[in-house]
């Protein structure tokens, strides 16, 4: 990706040399001639920022607010008109400011950076109405943005491209200033020059409002050679950018079963065969995938050492798996949600596992880190479905539902793949360490700087509010009641955690199978199907999230 940055930057500068720049050229030139350095800087900065934001977020804004893109454009045109008019009729502008001032006190900007604020707003409006000839790089970023898939590199690329445009525009304006400095007229009649800039802005706004900019572009396309009009695209194609920006994300992996593949993937965005609709997935945090960083190189410490910072009542997610005992404190998982770990089996082989936790659902689950039999790692996609963590794998970029372990988007969904679950006990530190004095504990030395004494979601665990919407919100219980959910033969049932405080063993049945549920000393709920003698792995989580993913669930009542 680093290699693409200079290409994007130069491509931005080249955009300025194509006819695409014509609609904004008069304003840039006029502001240069007017010569207020801060106004020029404001306009250029405004264009750079608003163009970048538009490429990244316009799709989301249009979808979330339900307003057409044309409306955004029209609003920007109206703003341009207002700024233009304010320059032509400064008296009126001051009146408006005075009027606004009555309701909203603010300091008028009357310093040496005069015109900066107005310049930024003018530039920001221009950036929205101006649809430059975008090349493959920006198009690919816009494609990702259209499906809500951002990454640090896509944001960096489009900003770099805009900076190239910004530099080009700034140089043009500076050239304008050079020229005007040669003529005394511009200095003497600065009021008039100011008004001329206003007229140019108004003219541009009207020009764009009636669609003349598009007419002009059509005309230039027909008369000018393609090599000129498509300069940025031609330039980017020299470097064969397509193979970098449209990687094999839509392809299925073809690695050998049992091999390990961990790579930089794009999130799968093709909803063919998906288990969810694209509108069901909500962007839960900014920055795209890994906006919450998983722990990829976990370190562990002893009970004594953990006792110095972990309280007895703290929750830990623990495994006692093939003879290895490990505890992963909720305090750490609140900030990372996924630990990519390995366990040395008695056979001497390592088994790749992931311990996952969704703070909004209270659900901790363990999985084998295998996608289509290929060992890989998992990360936080940044998306949520029914408030639950959506994970992605670093082999194919599939999206996975944490609570069900199901592949929901990508080839894994089409393969009907479900991650193999490993049992995780959610219990208190007191109970776990008493039964497992030799347990290893995940260390706070995660390689990330976080305040593990702080709970990042405020009063979320105590209150009755959800941060995002849920389908089938079931209020049979207070929504954040901890329950143990089990599935037997397609049937599901939830047991409020409190029932095990009254009696540690419960005999019940589900789907015709007799069950025994018992709470062990370490705090584990052990569920046995008495017909088959098989152990069923229960999930401990908040009631609402169990019910959201199991709308037909039964609820145990004493």
């Amino acid at each position, binding site marked *: 990706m680093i290699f693409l940055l200079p290409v994007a930057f130069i491509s931005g500068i080249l955009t300025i040399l194509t006819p695409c720049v014509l609609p904004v050229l008069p304003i840039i030139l006029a502001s240069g001639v007017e010569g207020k350095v801060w106004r020029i800087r404001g306009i250029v900065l405004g264009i750079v920022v608003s163009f970048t934001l538009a490429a990244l977020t316009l799709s989301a804004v249009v*979808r979330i607010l339900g307003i057409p893109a*044309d409306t955004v454009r029209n609003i920007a045109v109206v703003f341009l008109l207002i700024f233009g008019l304010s320059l032509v009729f400064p008296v009126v502008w001051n*009146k408006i400011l005075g009027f606004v001032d009555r309701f909203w006190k603010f300091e008028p900007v009357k310093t040496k950076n005069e015109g900066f604020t107005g310049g930024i707003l003018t530039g920001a409006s221009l950036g929205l109405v101006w649809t430059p000839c*975008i090349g*493959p790089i920006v*198009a690919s970023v816009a494609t990702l943005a*259209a499906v809500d898939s951002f990454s640090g590199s896509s944001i960096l690329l489009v900003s770099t491209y805009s900076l190239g445009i910004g530099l080009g525009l700034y140089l043009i304006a500076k050239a304008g200033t050079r020229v005007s400095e040669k003529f005394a007229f511009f200095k003497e009649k600065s009021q008039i020059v100011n008004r001329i800039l206003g007229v140019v802005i108004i003219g541009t706004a009207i020009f764009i409002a009636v669609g003349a900019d598009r007419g002009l*572009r059509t005309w230039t396309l027909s008369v000018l050679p*393609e090599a000129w009009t498509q300069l940025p695209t031609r330039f980017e194609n020299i470097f064969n950018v397509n193979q970098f920006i449209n990687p094999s994300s839509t392809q299925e992996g073809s690695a050998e079963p049992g091999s390990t593949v961990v790579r930089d993937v794009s999130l799968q965005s093709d909803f*063919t065969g998906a288990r969810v609709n694209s509108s069901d997935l909500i962007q839960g945090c900014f920055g795209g995938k890994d906006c919450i960083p998983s722990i990829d190189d976990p370190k562990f410490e002893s009970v004594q050492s953990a006792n110095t910072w972990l309280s007895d009542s703290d929750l830990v997610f623990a495994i006692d798996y093939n003879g290895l005992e490990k505890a992963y404190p909720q305090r750490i998982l609140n900030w990372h949600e996924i630990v990519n770990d390995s366990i040395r089996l008695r056979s001497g082989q390592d088994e790749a596992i992931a311990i996952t936790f969704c703070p909004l659902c209270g659900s901790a689950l363990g999985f084998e880190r295998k996608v289509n039999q290929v060992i890989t790692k998992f990360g936080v996609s940044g998306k949520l479905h029914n408030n639950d963590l959506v994970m992605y794998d670093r082999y194919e970029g599939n999206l996975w539902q944490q609570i069900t372990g199901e592949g929901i988007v990508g080839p894994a969904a089409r393969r009907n793949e479900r991650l193999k679950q490993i049992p995780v006990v959610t219990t208190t530190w007191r109970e776990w360490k008493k039964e497992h004095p030799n347990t290893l504990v995940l260390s706070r030395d995660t390689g990330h700087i976080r305040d593990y004494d702080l709970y990042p979601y405020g009063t979320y665990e105590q209150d009755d509010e959800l941060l995002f919407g849920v389908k089938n919100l079931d209020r049979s219980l207070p929504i954040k009641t901890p329950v143990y959910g089990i599935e037997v033969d397609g049937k599901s049932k939830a047991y409020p955690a409190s029932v095990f405080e009254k009696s540690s063993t419960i005999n019940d049945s589900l789907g015709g199978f007799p069950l025994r549920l018992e709470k062990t000393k370490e705090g584990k709920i052990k569920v046995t199907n008495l017909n088959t003698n098989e152990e069923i792995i229960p999930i401990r989580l908040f009631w609402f999230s169990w019910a959201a993913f199991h709308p037909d669930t039964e609820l145990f009542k004493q």
Partner: protein
Amino acid sequence: MKKNTILIVVLAIFVVVIGGLFYVSSSKTPSASSAQKSEVLASNYITYTPAAFADAKNEGRTLLFFWAPWCGTCSFLDDEIKKRNSELPQDLTILRTNYDTETDLKNKYGIVFQHTLVQVNKDGSEVKKWIGGGVDLLKQQIK
């Protein structure tokens, strides 16, 4: 003082006139296609009309190509679809859809850039969306 009042009145009239013009021009934006017949540009490559869209959805895979006469990269893809027509899947119908006039369709699929391609399935829901690129990217993206 009087001069200022006149200025304000002039300004207000100006804003209202521009706003009015704007409203008229945007509300009048015709669904240009509705009355017209679909124009065949190449094999399985036609201009959008609601009827053609309905037919295409029933027949096989359908791709909406949001195109504008002022968009250089769009005309590049337009040419390429015509020239390299034989490389495209037989069951794929591409509908060239005018970005400037098909406002309803644009809103339905949340289109914010010219040169956006949307593959839709039988019930009209979106399968795949991407922006930019030529026939090579199209072949790679289409499902």
